[in-house]
């Protein structure tokens, strides 16, 4: 290919309609992924924006069938870069991730469907009391598993097992 035939960067850009479609299809999952890594909604938004900027600029290098995986990988890399840069303290970001304040809800928190919430709620009611108690203490009271084990006078392995079993049941409700 001669220099004259070589397309310029502008021509290689992914068109805006395609980027918009990518955003509509994957932005929610990407935001959750980034929140999971960064545990900070503002940093997650920053990483998401950086990922889509890259998608616009160099998205053409990704094969169509792997575009989703490519986008997720780029997002993870952006998040890890931000994480290293920020040196985000684990305790501080955990506080944000588990925030339950309605005034401080995470951006994608609004995207949780009511039907899903109801399904998970019913599943929680159906959990054995000991599993429900661990879930409540972990999710609502934001206690670590070590603290929960100490308060309940139960071995840590038992607490972890209860949480794992509960999550397995609750997670199934997301698939429906």
């Amino acid at each position, binding site marked *: 290919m001669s220099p004259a035939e070589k397309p310029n960067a502008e021509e290689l850009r992914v068109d805006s309609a395609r980027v918009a479609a990518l955003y509509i299809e994957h932005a929610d999952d990407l935001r*959750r992924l980034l929140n999971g890594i960064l545990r900070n909604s503002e940093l997650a938004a920053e990483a998401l924006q950086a990922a889509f900027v890259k998608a616009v600029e160099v998205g053409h290098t990704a094969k169509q069938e792997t575009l989703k995986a490519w986008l997720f990988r780029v997002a993870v890399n952006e998040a890890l870069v931000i994480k290293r840069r920020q040196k985000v303290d684990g305790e501080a970001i955990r506080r944000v991730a588990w925030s339950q304040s309605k005034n401080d809800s995470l951006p994608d928190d609004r995207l949780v469907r009511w039907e899903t919430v109801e399904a998970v709620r019913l599943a929680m009611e159906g959990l054995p009391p000991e599993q429900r108690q661990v879930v409540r203490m972990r999710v609502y009271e934001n206690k670590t598993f070590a603290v929960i084990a100490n308060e309940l006078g139960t071995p840590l392995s038992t607490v972890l097992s209860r949480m794992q079993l509960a999550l397995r049941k609750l997670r199934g409700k997301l698939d429906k």
Partner: protein
Amino acid sequence: MSNTMVQSDLAWTAFRYISNEMPADEAAAFELRLAADQESREEVARAVELTQTMARIPQSVPQPATVRPWRQRLSWMTAGAAVCLAVMLCGEFVRSAMVGRSASSVDGSRIAGMTFDTDMEVTDTDANDADLNASGVMNNEVSVPSWLLAAVTGKPATHPDDNPDDDVLDN
């Protein structure tokens, strides 16, 4: 190991990762995996979605309270106090009943004494015995002394004016 098991393990790992319940070295290893494995990335997104969904569930969902042992202890204490109170009341009732019975037996012996004292007047009450016998109701109780019948029916076996122990009985 089945795919379900592997997926479950991955879901658990993702949950521990987003919950900051993972040692630093394991978290670093998982982040390397995130950079390469799409399934892990999606599982992290799923774990976040689940925790956010759970966080949106109203707290009114019936949950076993942390203070349950205290409540249980309090309810047991209340129940124990109630049982103690009931036992005390029963004991008091039994004791008062026994006192009443002994008082009755004293009265009975006094009545018996009266009967002996008024032996001559017993024949006056034989008519009552005869009536009872005639009605056939008390046929098997002919041996019951008239003083006992008098005590049961509350009618004096003799005329009160003639009874020397009348004052005692009134008491």
